[in-house]
């Protein structure tokens, strides 16, 4: 098992260390203190599992559920973007479309999952669509979606995070998650990013 993963498996001894004595208030702690800290994948999976079960009871249909997961991810993403820009970019956000997409593909993915995303592609059909793919999404490693919900992809949560990062960097977009299995990777997931018209128009002007 790759030990550098942000989400590690339960057997590894890593995890967020809680200081034994004199706990500093969270607001006084240096932001880099938890840089590189890992969370147990088991614990996180159980938490996410509860989030899903809770959400599932309060929605009608798959689309509604994905929307809810997307919203929950959005709240995470806004904060994560702020933190990562501060840590990795000296507090300067990306202003070019390709750069922000690359930022998501590498920095964001490495921070969340301990590895880069497996691909970043531009859609051949639509000018405004980009795709980020992960062959083995860690978030849904233990999740088997039942047949009657086969359209559902729980990575809608990740899509929400990506959407929030784009939103935070002033690149509003509609972000969705889709299962696109290929040989050897049955749970391969593609995060589809459909950028707003204004973003493309602005990008034209900046050229």
């Amino acid at each position: 098992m790759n030990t550098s993963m942000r989400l590690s498996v339960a057997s590894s001894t890593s995890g967020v260390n809680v200081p034994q004595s004199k706990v500093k208030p969270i607001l006084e702690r240096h932001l880099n203190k938890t840089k590189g800290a890992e969370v147990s994948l088991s614990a996180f999976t159980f938490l996410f599992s509860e989030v899903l079960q809770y959400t599932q009871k309060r929605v009608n249909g798959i689309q509604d559920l994905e929307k809810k997961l997307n919203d929950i991810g959005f709240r995470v993403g806004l904060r994560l973007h702020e933190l990562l820009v501060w840590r990795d970019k000296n507090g300067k956000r990306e202003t070019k479309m390709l750069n922000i997409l690359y930022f998501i593909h590498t920095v964001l993915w490495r921070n969340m999952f301990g590895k880069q995303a497996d691909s970043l592609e531009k859609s051949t059909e639509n000018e405004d669509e980009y795709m980020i793919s992960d062959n083995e999404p860690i978030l849904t490693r233990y999740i088997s979606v039942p047949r009657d919900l086969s359209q559902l992809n729980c990575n809608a949560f990740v899509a929400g995070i990506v959407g929030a990062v784009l939103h935070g960097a002033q690149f509003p977009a509609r972000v969705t998650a889709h299962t696109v299995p290929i040989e050897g990777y049955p749970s391969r997931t593609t995060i589809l990013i459909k950028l707003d018209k204004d973003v493309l128009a602005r990008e034209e002007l900046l050229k």
Partner: protein
Amino acid sequence: MIYSLYIINKAGGLVYQRDFAEGLTKLTSNEYLILAGTFHGVHAITSRISPVPSSNGLERLDSDQFTLYCFQTLTGTKFLLLTEPSHPNASTTLHHMYEIYSDFVMKNPFHTPEMPIRSDMFDRQLQKYVASL
């Protein structure tokens, strides 16, 4: 060689049954349920009639054609493994299957505890593990 795996919930209901070898006699689903329920009862009896206090009940049953191993988890779920008589290290195998179970069944948000297991990932991982033996 491993013949099959049964998982029985704490109430004695069969929640999972799967054969790994070719040419085994198939029972109807009702018969599998009866078999599981009967074993559950026998297991309870064996743990009570033991001359030594706090016995864990039946752990192994030998016959000329097969050996049955039973592993009971802390929560009362029972894993039954049917193997050919010469199969080595069945308890390691059972523990590993329990590990797969805790990962791919218990961490699956779409699984209801004590209910039959329907999980593609669990099937796939078990298959992979048995093939690797």
